[in-house]
């Protein structure tokens, strides 16, 4: 259980996956040299000596866990992960990239699609996000059966596993390819910057400075960032 402790370093956890590249771009824009992420890609930890920043790469869903435990000070994570797994971390900044939305989608040929009715039997919803889906339908007062899947959710209605799905949509192409259409938007999502509850106190000068740089950059270039 030993770990390298250097309180001088600011440890930033980057998520692998589709938020990885825009995250690297963001830090380079505020003056932390990551060499385009080429080196970082091969190793799991990477130092920028000059800025005294250490980067670690995590699986996207694990990112908040690293922050909650305090092995990293700052993390970047998709809002979907935070909504699905409540973690005790500060959510400090909407980074405005990685934009997508959580939606309910159903097969195009489905009749009465707006009414969530299914000839008397209970509606089945396939999703990777059972908590978000459960909260949503509970609020609407609709009684559903949730089927937790780990991927390829859009397949479920085609093979009769579920009537509808709750999933993330960014371009909508996957839905189109699977003859699904959005019938309700649950919540818009984007990448979020999170901070450990104690680091935000103990390293708050550095974190605040970094946050201000990022905020400034985002407000200047918000249109461009949305395309990242």
């Amino acid at each position, binding site marked *: 259980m030993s770990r390298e402790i250097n309180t001088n370093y600011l440890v930033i956890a980057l998520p692998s996956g589709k938020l990885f590249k825009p995250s690297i771009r963001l830090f380079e824009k505020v003056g932390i040299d990551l060499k385009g992420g080429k080196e970082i890609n091969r190793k799991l930890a990477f130092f920028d000596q000059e800025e005294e920043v250490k980067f670690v790469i995590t699986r996207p869903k694990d990112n908040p866990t690293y922050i909650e435990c305090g092995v990293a000070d700052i993390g970047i994570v998709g809002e979907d992960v935070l909504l699905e797994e*409540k973690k005790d971390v500060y*959510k400090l900044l909407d980074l405005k990239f990685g934009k997508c939305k959580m939606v309910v989608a159903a097969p195009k040929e489905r009749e009465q699609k707006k009414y969530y009715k299914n000839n008397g039997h209970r509606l089945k919803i396939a999703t990777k996000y059972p908590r978000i889906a459960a909260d949503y339908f509970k609020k609407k007062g609709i009684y559903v059966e949730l089927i937790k899947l780990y991927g390829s959710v859009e397949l479920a209605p085609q093979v009769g596993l579920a009537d509808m799905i709750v999933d993330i949509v960014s371009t909508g192409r996957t839905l189109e390819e699977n003859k699904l259409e959005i019938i309700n938007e649950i919540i818009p999502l984007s990448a*979020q910057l999170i901070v450990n*509850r104690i680091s935000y*106190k103990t390293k708050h000068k550095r974190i*605040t400075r970094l946050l201000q740089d990022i905020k400034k950059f985002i407000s200047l270039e918000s249109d461009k960032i949305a395309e990242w």
Partner: protein
Amino acid sequence: MNIPEGLNDLFPEEVLKRRLLENKISQVFKEWGYQEIITPTFEFYDMLARGAGSIMKKEMIKFFDREGNIIALRPEMTTPLARVTSTKMQQEPKPLRFYYMGNVFRYDDFKVGGQREFCQAGVELIGVNSKKADAEVIALAVECLKNSGLKNFFIDIGHINFFNGIMQSIKAEEKRKLEIKEAILNKDFVLLEKILSFSDIKDKEKELILKMPTLRGREEVLEEAENIIFNKLSLSALKEIKKVYNLLRDYGLEEYVLIDLGIIRDFDYYTGIIFEGYTDYLGFPICGGGRYDKLCSKFGENLPSTGFAAGLERLIMALERENINSLDLKKPDQYLVCYQNNKDNFRKALKSAKNLRKKGLIVELEVGKREFAEVLNYARSKGIKYIVIVVDNQPNKIKRIEVTSGKEEMITYE
């Protein structure tokens, strides 16, 4: 052959560390005049719920007894102690000083590690409402962490009414206020900023609310806050913090204490000064506490009180990250006594074991019929330092073999 999720079996090495830490901490508590008290592991849910907020009520582990009453495992120790002192000690002279060391239980599933049973050590100073009482409990928390061997830590002190005052003074609908409060409790500052931007709140106050978690430091923090805050409740909270801070200076503890206006504790029973302990080695607090003046009245007695609890598992984690050897025990040498099998030798073995134990050494006696090679292997893997062999024809002497080197010598055992 499993145990339920979130529970642990502690192995001997872990138990040694735990007990060592428990001793170090309880020694400090005793020196400060606190007496140990033990309450039941489970109680009526209704009693425990009197000290619990809505989250804690959900996190309690509950079941039914034979009469159909709802029983819960205690999720913390302050409420049971408030019950005991309010219902069974009305006649005792106040203040009461109690300490406890025991396991508490929660469905803490979203927290790190998802542990459902953990050990808390803490104190309650019951029946007095004074800044000196607040300062004593905080000073004791510092002393307890220091004595545990931890070097790098801070106790942050704040006040529940700093935040309450701001919330009261804000001119907004109750519904909006609740949203603001919830966003702060959830640490969701993205949402908070959004809500505040829609609200009719002065810019200075908005800025203050958003800055709250970072309002931490020495006295200058109080001055900074005094310049922005105008409501009475928050200002009197700042005054109280200042008084307690100055008392802690008298204790000579200023290097360990910081003022932190951003502390919001999870429990609903706090009414005054609150505090939390942090180290650089953990991403969550190691201890926390504060003043709770209304809890005992829920059990029928008006007893203003203050106290704190430290999580022993967390403290062990912090200690080992700071210095891996900080909880290593200096154990006495371990002996294994063997003998050639006859009644005479057995008696001799018993006698020599007794004598070695008297010297403070740890002695186990061979109870099987193992060959020497097997015994040697066993001793090696168990970290036994010496094997002693009782031999015939040597009246007062035994053969002592050092396990690592194989060095033999004859020693007298009388």
